[in-house]
């Protein structure tokens, strides 16, 4: 097992929810409603991303996966917890070392329309970080941009064109070229194919696989498309309401999920081989991260809930080699 490239320890990220107009007015007259509301996006997550692996991070809207990805890139500071990059605590890094960490961890965004500056041509978009951080002599930047564009399957002759002159799939390639230009070790991809057409999705997934093979790239691959995560990931972590509920080797987790939420989520993945399926919903709704339930966050919707589930929150514990789940059912099994 290789050493962790990035290690997240006890990462918590809260946001304070905006107060409504009525609450502001009440506050101004001294009737402030106790505390400002806290949105608990991520709660005490431990996660390591090992060198050379593809770690899939899945969960439904609002589970905190994108927030966790942003914390991992250093864009978003955690409310609590620490990050270690290549074995060193990011908080203790010198200015120069911190810059190196920020450059070595690059992000690919979901929306190839919103994440490219429309007033810059492709050469400037892809070469900007190289120029700003003086990573390459000015005279070499054009050649580096050309190399990055070729690697992502774009004709370098397009370097002078602007983002609006490209299709969605081509723009996503530009976004990937921008990330690759600074020679990163880790690509954090947040829903990188969700906005693309089916036939284009396969092209971009293949590009990620090619980059992995050629550069031994490490990935944190965040998506709600479970079929694609299953295809690209070595390990997968499943989040629910700000916490990881199960983590382990992707093929094992997908073929025999242990946590009841993981099982429900994976069971819901549409498949070409099932016909005239009778769709069965999971009862209830995802609770608000403003007011998570007591005990296990999934217990109000869980068909297997025990009395203890509403009282004590289960911790992530080993259930098999390399696999962990946060569920009292498995703790009970292990004890008996």
């Amino acid at each position: 097992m290789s050493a962790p490239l990035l290690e997240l320890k006890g990462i918590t990220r809260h946001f304070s929810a905006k107060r409504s107009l009525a609450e502001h007015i009440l506050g101004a007259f001294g009737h402030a409603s106790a505390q400002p509301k806290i949105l608990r996006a991520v709660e005490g997550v431990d996660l390591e991303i090992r060198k050379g692996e593809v770690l899939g991070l899945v969960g439904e809207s609002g589970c905190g996966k994108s927030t966790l990805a942003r914390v991992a890139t250093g864009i978003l500071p955690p409310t609590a917890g620490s990050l270690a990059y290549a074995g060193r605590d990011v908080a203790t890094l010198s200015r120069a070392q911190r810059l190196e960490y920020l450059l070595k961890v690059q992000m690919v965004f979901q929306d190839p329309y919103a994440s490219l500056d429309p007033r810059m041509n492709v050469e400037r978009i892809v070469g900007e970080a190289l120029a700003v951080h003086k990573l390459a002599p000015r005279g070499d930047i054009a050649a580096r941009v050309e190399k990055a564009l070729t690697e992502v399957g774009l004709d370098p002759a397009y370097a002078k064109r602007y983002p609006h002159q490209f299709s969605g799939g081509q723009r996503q390639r530009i976004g990937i070229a921008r990330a690759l230009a600074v020679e990163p070790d880790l690509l954090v991809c947040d829903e990188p194919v969700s906005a693309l057409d089916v036939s284009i999705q396969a092209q971009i997934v293949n590009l990620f696989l090619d980059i992995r093979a050629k550069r031994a790239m490490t990935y944190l691959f965040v998506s709600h498309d479970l079929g694609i995560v299953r295809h690209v990931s070595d390990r997968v972590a499943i989040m629910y309401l700000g916490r990881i509920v199960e983590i382990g080797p992707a093929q094992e987790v997908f073929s025999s999920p242990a946590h009841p939420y993981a099982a429900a989520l994976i069971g819901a993945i549409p498949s070409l081989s099932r016909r005239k399926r009778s769709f069965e919903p999971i009862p209830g709704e995802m609770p608000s991260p403003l007011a998570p339930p007591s005990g296990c966050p999934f217990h109000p919707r869980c068909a297997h809930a025990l009395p203890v589930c509403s009282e004590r929150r289960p911790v992530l514990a080993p259930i098999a080699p390399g696999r962990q789940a946060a569920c009292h059912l498995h703790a009970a099994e292990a004890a008996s």
Partner: protein
Amino acid sequence: MSTKKRDTALIEVRGLTTVFHAENGAWPAVQDVSFVLRPGEVLGLVGESGSGKSVTGFSLVGLIDPPGEIVAGEIRYGGEDLRTLAPERLRALRGDRIAMIFQDPLMTLNPVLTIGEQMAEAILEHHDESRSGALARAAQALARVGISSPDARLKQYPHELSGGMRQRVAIAIAMLNGPDLIIADEPTTALDVTIQNQILHEVQKLARESGTALLWITHDLAVIAELADRIAVMYSGYIVETGPVDAIIDRPRHPYTAGLLASAATHAQPGERLRQIDGMAPRIDSRPSGCPFRTRCDRASPACAGAMPPPQGDETHLFRCHNPLPAGGTP
């Protein structure tokens, strides 16, 4: 069970062609599209962006505004041609016998009315009923799509709900009057899989128990494999292949259908490259002559640059291709 006859056509579309007028010509978004939908049947209309699948759905219910225009074809519904129907008669059908669900629920929802007001309006517009009766039915419909505390939701405005909740409200509105046909345009694309399951569970029940027919427009072949009875695959305005689910998924004849299926992640070993269709769909104003797929097709021959071939095959499984894949199994 339904009393509606399940063997006769509910809606029959023949030769539908919808164009968009521009300075440099009239470009066909939908070309020579024909299909039949029977009561209780689910037809999946599958295609990528720009394939014409949404315009087909909009054309059926007369929601094509200039510069768009339906220039040819018939849309037979209950002995009438919807194309030539008086606008007020079409309005009476829409929202009652024929309902539409859009990808963006804000196309359905009025921002200045509460959920209860607009749901009651959707009922009272078409039926003689008391307001309290309509609100009670609205609350039931919300509960059916998995919305908790429906009575409280009726008093809320659309902006107070999350995106997934809004879409479920839009779907509840579509189901309110027990329509004969629901046209659903990518209704669950933006939703999470568990919410998608909830909605598919409800529409499936509606189709099975009330005999509502569904035209389910999507780019997601896996969802349609699980939900539909029949599939029609669109590319550049044409239905290039149509047939029963098993035939289309297991024994596709058109190279585009086969390519889409082969590119699915479930068809490859984990971590291996996916089979991809190179290139991208041509823009509406720069489609190649003849078969529009020929420039991306590995089976293309000189004949493909000629004319788009007419539908061929047996009665149920039709495809438009000069060089179809052999019958009897995926290559």
